[in-house]
C-alpha cells in the first residue's frame, strides 16, 4: 500500500458516521449475542448501551472493547457467585455487564442496606442497566464507586464527585442503594437529561461492532432468497 493509500485509509477510518440511539441499541444487542451472550442478556445490553449513549457517558468503542473481550468459557468466573452482598466473582473481577443485570434484577430487593460488589471491571457499564431500570422506579437509585456517585431518578441523572472516575478500568468495590430523590440537594448544572441527537462513531469502530453482530446472520443462498423471503414474482405489473 502506498503512503497516499495509507493516508486515505487512515482518513476514512477516522471518519465519523452518525447513528441513532435505536441503531446503537439494535447493533449492540446483536453484537452481544454475536460474542456468545444469550438473547435475553443481549436485549439488556442493547438497552444499556442506548442509555449510556443518550447520556453521553461512555462511547461505543468501549462497548466494543468489552464485548470483544468477553469469553463465554469464563462465564462462571466473572459472575457473582450468589446474590448475597457483597457480590463476589469466582475468579478475578466481576463482569460489569452481568453484574449490571443482576443489580437491575434485584433492584426491588434493595431496601435499607446497599448492595455491594467486590472487584469489578469498567464500573461505568453497570450504570447503563440501572439507568434503564430507574425509568420505571418510583424511588431513586444511587450507584457509587471510587470517588464518584450517580443518582438515577426516572430519566434524570445526577453525577457527583470526580468525573475522571467514570472512566476507571476497574474498581475495588461498588455500592448500589435506594434513595429519596426529593432529599437530594443538587446544583441544576449537575442534573442531566438524555440527549436526543445522532451519536457520532468512527466507521472503524462501527465496523468492529458490525463484525460482532454479523455472527448472528445466516449466509444467503439462492434457496433462502427464493423460499425464505417468499419472493420470485413479477413486479412490473
Amino acid at each position, binding site marked *: 500500500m502506498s503512503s497516499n493509500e495509507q493516508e486515505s485509509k487512515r482518513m476514512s477510518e477516522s471518519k465519523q*458516521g*452518525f*447513528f*441513532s*440511539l*435505536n*441503531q446503537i441499541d439494535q447493533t449492540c444487542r446483536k453484537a452481544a449475542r454475536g460474542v456468545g*451472550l*444469550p*438473547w*435475553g*442478556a443481549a*436485549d*439488556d445490553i442493547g*438497552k444499556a448501551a442506548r442509555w449510556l449513549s443518550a447520556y453521553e457517558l461512555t462511547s461505543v468503542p468501549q462497548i466494543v472493547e468489552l464485548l470483544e473481550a468477553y469469553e463465554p468459557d469464563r*462465564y462462571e468466573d466473572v*459472575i*457473582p457467585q*450468589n*446474590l448475597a452482598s457483597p457480590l463476589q466473582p469466582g475468579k478475578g473481577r466481576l463482569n460489569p455487564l*452481568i453484574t449490571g*443485570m*443482576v443489580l*437491575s*434484577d*434485584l*433492584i*426491588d*430487593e434493595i431496601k435499607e442496606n446497599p448492595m455491594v460488589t467486590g472487584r469489578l471491571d469498567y464500573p461505568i457499564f453497570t450504570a447503563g442497566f440501572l439507568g*434503564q*431500570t430507574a*425509568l*420505571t422506579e418510583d424511588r431513586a437509585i444511587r450507584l457509587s464507586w471510587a470517588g464518584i456517585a450517580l443518582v438515577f431518578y426516572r430519566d434524570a441523572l445526577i453525577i457527583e464527585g470526580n468525573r475522571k472516575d467514570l472512566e476507571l478500568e476497574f474498581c475495588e468495590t461498588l455500592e448500589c442503594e435506594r434513595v429519596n430523590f426529593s432529599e437530594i440537594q443538587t446544583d441544576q448544572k449537575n442534573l442531566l437529561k*438524555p440527549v*436526543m*441527537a*445522532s451519536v457520532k462513531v468512527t466507521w472503524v469502530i462501527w465496523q468492529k461492532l458490525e463484525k460482532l453482530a*454479523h*455472527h*448472528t*446472520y*445466516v*449466509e*444467503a*443462498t439462492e*434457496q*433462502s*432468497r427464493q*423460499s*425464505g*423471503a*417468499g*419472493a420470485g*414474482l413479477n*413486479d*412490473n*405489473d
Partner: protein
Amino acid sequence: MQENLSEKAERASLRSPEKVMRLARMGSFHQTRLSFMRALLRCLKREKWQFERAVWNIDENGVGHGVYVASNGKHTYSLVCFAHDLPPEKRSDRVIAEEWDATFALYDGSPNQEEIERLRGNIPKQEAGHCQQTELVLARANRSVRLFEHVVDRLSQGRQPDQDMIDSVGYLMRTSAVYGNGKFGLGDRERVSDRPEFVGAFRTELLAVWLIRAFTTDITEHMARVANPQKAVKMDPNIKRRLGVGNSTGLGMAPFLILHPALIHRWIAARERALARVCSLPTATMETENQFADLVRRMIIGVDNWNTVDEIQQDRIIELRQDLLKLQSHIDRDNQPSIWEAPMPWKQLIHWTDSALSMEAQELVVSLVIEPHGELVDDLADEMGIDEAQYFPIKGGQTVGELLGNIEDHYRWALDINYEQSAESARFWYVSEEKLEPRLGERFEEPGAEKEQPLAFGRDVAALYRTLSPGDPNQKIAGFLLQNPEHRHAVRRVQTTSRLPYAEVQDNLIAADMRPIDLLRCKLSFFGASRFDPRSDRWVRITMYQHAPFPDELYQEGMDADDWVYPPLPGNS
C-alpha cells in the same frame, strides 16, 4: 382507583386473549376506525394542519424533486420526494432492489437548499445512504406500470382514466419500504413521541405515506402534461380519490409483532375494548342501526373490488361475500325485528357471528359494529402507543413458584405442544446477511438454525417451565437467571404477558403449517390497510388511503376526514 359501571361492563364484554390471539383470527383482522391512518387524518383535521406543495422541480423525463409541507404553526414536516427514471428491468419490490421509481424522506422542519442537496445525495440510495435525526421516515415506491401508463395516456388525450381499471389496481405507486424510528440513522421515535400528532403508533410513517399519495397523482398528471401540453387534463377528483398507495410487504414486518409485546397488547386491547364498549350498550339507536346497515352494503361493494391472485384469499373473499349477504338478511328489521329489540343487540350480533360466519367475516363484523360508535371509542386511538421501557426490567425478586404459576395461567397453549415432533419445530426465523432481512428457514433442510432469532416464545417458555419445575419454588428469579442465563428472554416474556395479556400470539411460530402472512395482515390492519392481496404465504400487497381525501381536500365542504374506508354507495361519490 374505583372502576365505574361502564368500565365494569366493558371488562365483562372483553373477548379473551385465548380467543383473540390466535394466528388464524389475527390473520383475518380488518381495519377499524382506530386504525392509525384514520386516527391520523382525524387528528390532522381537528388540529387544523395546513398543507402545500412547496417545490415542484421535475423535468420532462419525470426526474427531479418535489417538497410537500405539512404544518400546524407549531411543527412543520416536509416530505422530500425524488423522482427517478427507472428502467423496467430494475423495478423490483424486493428489499434487494437498489433503484426505485421514487424515493422519499419525511423531514422534521423545512429543509433549506443545502439540506435538500444532502438528502439528494443519500435518500435515493435508501439503506446505503446516510440519514440524520432530522429525517423521520425513509421510503421508496415503484409504479404500477399498467395503471400508471394508462392514466398518463388517458389524461394526455384529455380523457379521464377508466374507473374499472382504477378500481381493479387501486394505486399508481406502491411503496416497498417505509422506515422510521431510528432505522439507518433516522430520527429516534423519542424525538417526536410527545408531539400530539404522533401519539399512538406509526403515525410519522403514515403521514409520509399520505403525502406520498399526493405525489403519485401529481407526477402522473405531470407526465401527462409533458406528453401533450395542449390537451392534457387533470384527474377528476372523484376518480382520483379512488386511488390509494400500494404497499408490498414481506417477512421483514413479521418479527416486529413478536418483539414488541407491550405495544401489541396496547393495539389489540384498544380494539377489543372498543368492541366491548359497543357490546355493552343496552340498546342500539335507530341511527346506528341504519348506519350499520349502510356499512354492510358499502362493504359488499368493497368486497366486489377486492381482487387477489391468491387462491386461499380468493376463496375467503367469495365466502366473505356470501357471509355479508347472510349478515344483511340477519339484520334486516323487516325479516327479524327481534334482533334489534333484544337487550344488548350488538353483543348478540357478535355472538351470532361466532357460529354463523367465517373467521374473515367475524372479524369484519367487529370492524363494522365499532364503526358507527366514534364518540364511544375514538379516545382509544390515542392509547395505542406505549413506553415499552416500563415493561422491560425483569422482576428478579419474583419466586420460581410465582413464575411457574404465571406460565400455567398464560402459556397453557405452549405447554401442550410437543416440540420434539419435527412438524412443531419445522421452521426457524433468521436474519439473512444479505440486506439483513428476516427470513424463515426449514430447520431440518437448511443451514443456519444455530443462528435462530428468539421468536419461538411458545417453545422457549415451555423449556423454561421444564427447567423451573424441579427447582426450589422459593428461589428468587434473579438467582435462577444467574445460573440459567439462556432463559432470560423467556422470563421477561412471561412477566410481560402476565401484566399485558394480549401481548402474546398464542400459536407456535415455528410450526410447519404456520402462515407468516397472518402476522403481516394483523399488523397492516392496524395501520388501516385494505384489499389484502397475498402473493405467497409470506408476502402481501395492500392498499392504503384508498378513497381518503387528499391534503388539498381535507377542509373541503362536505368532506368527512374519516368516512372514506368503505366505498361510497352508488350516487354518493
